[in-house]
C-alpha cells in the first residue's frame, strides 16, 4: 500500500511547522513540503536544516511558482541543495522552467508535474514529452486531478500513464474545480480516478492537496485510498 500524506500548504496554509505537527499526529508516512510562494522558500530551507524529518518514509518539496527569471538561478540553487542533501524530489511546474540550465543539475531529483487546463504546457502527452526530452532523468508527479480536469473521460490520464507511468515518483490527489481551485474529492471524481487506478504504481506515495481542516484530514485520506480499492479487489479476485 502506498504511503499517504498531505501537502503542507493544503493542511495548514503558510504554517509549515503546524502542518508537519498535524501530519505527525496522524502518523502519516508521506509529506510534501510546500513553498508555492517564493516568500515561503527561505523558511522551508531553514526548517529542514534544523529539524529531522527522517521519520517520514517519503518527503518531497514543492518549488515556488511565482519567481521571476532573474530569481530563477537562486531558487534552483536553494532547492538543489535541499534535494541533494536529503535526497528529496523537488516538484516543479512546467511553466516555471525559464532557463533550462538552472534545472539540469537536478537529474532524477527533478519531478515535473502535469498541469491543469489554465496552463498552456504540461497538460498532455504531447506537451510533457519535450520536457522529458529536455530533462531525461526527471520523474513525474502525476496530478490525477489536473489530468481529470483536462479530460474528464480520463483518456488523457490514461495516455500520460501509458507514456510516462514508469517515471512516476508521487501522486497528487484532490479534485480541481473548473475554476482550477483544489477542492475535496467528490464521488464523481473518485469514480473517474478509479478508471485509471490499475495503471497507477501501487508504491507511489499519495500526496493530498485537498484543502481540509486538520480535523477533516483523516476522512479525506480514507476517501483517497478508495481510488485503489476497486483495483485492489480486481487484482485479488
Amino acid at each position, binding site marked *: 500500500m502506498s504511503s499517504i500524506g498531505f501537502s503542507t500548504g493544503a493542511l495548514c496554509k503558510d504554517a509549515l511547522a503546524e502542518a508537519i505537527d498535524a501530519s505527525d499526529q496522524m502518523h502519516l508516512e508521506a509529506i510534501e513540503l510546500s513553498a508555492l510562494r517564493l516568500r515561503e522558500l527561505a523558511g522551508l530551507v531553514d526548517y529542514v536544516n534544523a529539524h529531522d524529518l527522517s521519520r517520514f518514509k517519503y518527503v518531497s518539496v514543492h518549488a515556488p511558482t511565482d519567481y521571476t527569471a532573474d530569481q530563477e538561478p537562486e531558487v534552483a540553487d536553494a532547492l538543489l541543495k535541499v534535494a541533494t542533501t536529503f535526497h528529496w524530489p523537488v516538484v516543479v511546474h512546467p511553466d516555471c522552467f525559464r532557463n533550462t540550465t538552472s534545472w539540469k543539475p537536478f537529474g532524477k531529483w527533478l519531478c515535473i508535474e502535469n498541469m491543469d487546463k489554465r496552463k498552456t504546457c504540461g497538460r498532455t502527452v504531447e506537451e510533457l514529452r519535450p520536457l522529458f526530452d529536455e530533462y531525461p532523468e526527471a520523474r513525474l508527479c502525476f496530478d490525477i486531478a489536473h489530468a481529470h480536469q483536462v479530460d474528464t473521460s480520463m483518456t488523457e490520464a490514461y495516455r500520460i500513464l501509458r507514456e510516462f507511468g514508469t517515471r512516476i515518483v508521487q501522486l497528487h490527489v484532490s479534485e480541481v474545480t473548473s475554476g482550477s481551485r483544489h477542492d475535496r474529492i467528490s464521488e464523481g471524481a473518485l469514480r473517474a480516478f*478509479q478508471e485509471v487506478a490499475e495503471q497507477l504504481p501501487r508504491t507511489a506515495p499519495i500526496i493530498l492537496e485537498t484543502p481540509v481542516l486538520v480535523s477533516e484530514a483523516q476522512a479525506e485520506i480514507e476517501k483517497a485510498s478508495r481510488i485503489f480499492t476497486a*483495483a485492489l479487489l*480486481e487484482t485479488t479476485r
Partner: protein
Amino acid sequence: MLFGSGGRFEVTSGSDPDWTLLVDGQANAKHQETATRAGVAIDEIAGKPPGREGIFGALAFSHSLIQYIGGQDDTNANLTRRILLLLESKAIGREDAHRRVVNAVLDRYLATDRGWMSGHTPYGVPRFLFNDIARYWRTVTVDYAYRQWTRNNQGWALRRAKLRMSRKLTYAAGLMYCFRLAGESREVPMSELDSGWKLRGIETLSGLTMSTPLDILADAFMTAPPLHAVGRHAFDSYDRFLGVLDNRDTREHLDTLPVDGAGSDEQYQFLRDLGERFQDSLSTLFIRDGRSRYPRLIEEYGVF
C-alpha cells in the same frame, strides 16, 4: 467551433460560416454577449451569416451534448451539434476544450454501451454510437424533405446536391468512424474495471475527430487496395462537386432553379451525375465488393 464546410476543410467561396460558441465550464451570464460579439466578427469575415436552420451561430453547452443522448431533451439541434462535433468540427478557439468535450461525448457513448464494453458486439463496433450516427443521417434526409415543403422548393437544387454529396460524405465517414474500432480484440475478460478498453477506444475515435470526413473515407479506400480505382471515382466526383460550389455563377443559377426546370438543366444534370457516381463508389465500398471487411460490417449493423 466551426462545423459544415469549415469543419470539413472544404470551404468554398459560397460557404456558410457555421460556427458555435461551445461552452465547457461554469455557467456565466456573459456567454451570450461573447457569442454575439463572435457572431458579428465572423459574419464580417465571412460576409454572410450562418445557415438558415438556426443550429449554428449560437451558444452550445457541453452538458447538453453529453447528457442528452436520446430522450425528449435531445433536440434536432442537439443531435446535429453532437454528431457534427465528432465528425466535422474544428476548433478556432481552445483546441484543448474541443478535445475535452469530444472525449466526454465519446465516453458517454462507449461507457454506456454494455454490449461493446463487454466485447459482445459483433466485430467490436460500438453499436450505440453507430445507431446515433445513422439516426442523424436519417434525420438529415427527412429534414431535407421538410424544407422542400416549408420553403416552397426555394433553393432545392443546391440543397439536394449537398445532401447527395457533402451530407452523405459525413455519414459515410461516420460509418467508417465506428468501423475503425472493428477487429479490436479484448485482451482480458470483461469487468467494470477494465477501463483501458474504453479509453483506448476513445483515444482512437478522438484522433479521427481531429481529421476530416474526406481523410477518413480516403483511409478506408487506401487500406483496401482492390478498391483504389473505385476510390479515385469517389474523390474525382467530390472534387468536381466542390468546383461547382466554388463557382458563384453556377451557385446562383442553381439557387433559383425551379423544380420543373431540372430535367433540362445542364448544370443540374451534371451535379446529378456526380451524385450518382459518388453513390456508386460508396455502394461498391460498403456493399458490393466483398474483398474488404466493410460489406460484412454493413450487413451486421447497417440495416437492423
